[in-house]
């Protein structure tokens, strides 16, 4: 893997939407970049020190945006430390943490509904060093308004797009700095029922609700949750980790993230105003050291975030978020301190 150290690179850290030509100029200058946009835009970028993924949805400081084919969102990691780029197929995903820097984080992008997506979601928390070398990132998506949409990730070293790879920017921080992975989850358990699962997966037929095994689709329908607006909230030792409902298909409930045996779940309590709730949560939280963030497409859609600000946190809007493992309907942020 080629290693690039641009600590001496001119300019402040950049995180912005820009024209394709401007992004190409940054690539040509050798800047280590994370890039997001539509496939038609990312296809035009030259080879260089970057990784990318598809999504047309973004949160900007001025509010939520859906961009066209003429723009991309660029995060310039210059100045953070040494950046190495890599790509992994589905059988080598656990090498992400093995090859991650001793001190830093690994920004990882995986295409929605790929084998890599499924495998990472199942296994990420059990990878060696998973909690010592943080993996953060996002699941690439597509324009939901266009039929036949497909998600891709880009290995910028060869300007190649992949439908089933994980592309990674391993970012090594100086010894006096530390990466902190944080989430903002608007959802909390509604307190109605405790739900457990005896199988792991994205497609579930049965659940144990308050101790009784029941057909999960029946339960979801009876609770009026089949529209997917409210996720399942898993209690991970006090951290709330969501798995969102994708659809109910006959006897099977399909999820955007797997559920796991041994975790207590509940449906989330409703959130009245997503944008206001984000602003409340982010108000008074310093953005000092903020190095990267993403937010979920379901928050964007159900929270009607287009044109609305959420407290200055900007980044791609994604089809799944990675904070050590896959999470849903969550804002993920990396802070370097």
């Amino acid at each position: 893997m080629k290693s690039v150290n641009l600590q001496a690179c001119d300019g402040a850290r950049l995180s912005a939407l820009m024209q394709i030509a401007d992004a190409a100029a940054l690539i040509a200058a050798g800047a280590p970049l994370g890039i997001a946009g539509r496939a038609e835009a990312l296809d035009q970028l030259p080879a260089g020190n970057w990784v990318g993924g598809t999504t047309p949805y973004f949160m900007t400081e001025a509010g939520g945006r859906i961009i066209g084919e003429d723009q991309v969102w660029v995060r310039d990691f210059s100045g953070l430390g040494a950046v190495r780029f890599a790509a992994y197929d589905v059988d080598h995903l656990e090498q992400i943490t093995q090859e991650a820097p001793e001190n830093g984080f690994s920004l990882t992008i995986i295409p929605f509904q790929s084998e890599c997506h499924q495998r990472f979601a199942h296994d990420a928390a059990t990878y060696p060093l998973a909690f010592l070398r943080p993996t953060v990132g996002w699941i690439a998506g597509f324009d939901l308004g266009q039929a036949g949409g497909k998600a891709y990730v880009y290995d910028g070293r060869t300007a190649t797009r992949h439908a089933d790879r994980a592309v990674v920017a391993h970012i090594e921080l100086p010894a006096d700095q530390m990466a902190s992975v944080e989430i903002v989850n608007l959802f909390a358990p509604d307190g109605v029922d405790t739900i457990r699962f005896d199988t792991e997966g994205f497609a579930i037929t049965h659940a144990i609700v308050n101790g009784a095994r029941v057909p999960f689709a029946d339960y979801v329908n009876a609770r009026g949750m089949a529209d997917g607006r409210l996720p399942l909230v898993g209690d991970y030792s006090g951290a709330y980790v969501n798995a969102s409902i994708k659809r109910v298909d006959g006897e099977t409930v399909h999820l955007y993230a797997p559920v796991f045996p041994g975790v207590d779940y509940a449906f989330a309590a409703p959130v009245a105003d997503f944008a206001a709730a984000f602003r409340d949560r982010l108000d008074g939280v310093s953005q000092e050291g903020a190095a990267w963030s993403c937010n979920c497409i379901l928050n964007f859609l159900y929270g009607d975030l287009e044109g609305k600000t959420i407290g200055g946190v900007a980044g791609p809007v994604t089809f799944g978020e990675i904070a050590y493992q896959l999470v849903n309907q969550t804002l993920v942020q990396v802070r370097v301190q």
Partner: protein
Amino acid sequence: MSLPPRTATCWQRLATGGLKQLKTSNLGAQMLGQRLEMSKLSAAQKADEIYAFFVKWERGLTNEISQLAGL
């Protein structure tokens, strides 16, 4: 407060349920706690993982380290 050595009994206590009692908002500690509760590793192996986590993130776990003696 300095980190207790690996031989301290607090690591075994953390590995046998204590980690879930720790008051923490550290996402990594919370997720690790859940993962270890669900795993079939031995208590000693869990204690090794917990100790390694605290060594790695010691600078950001001041509040959690202050709780170790009371577990």
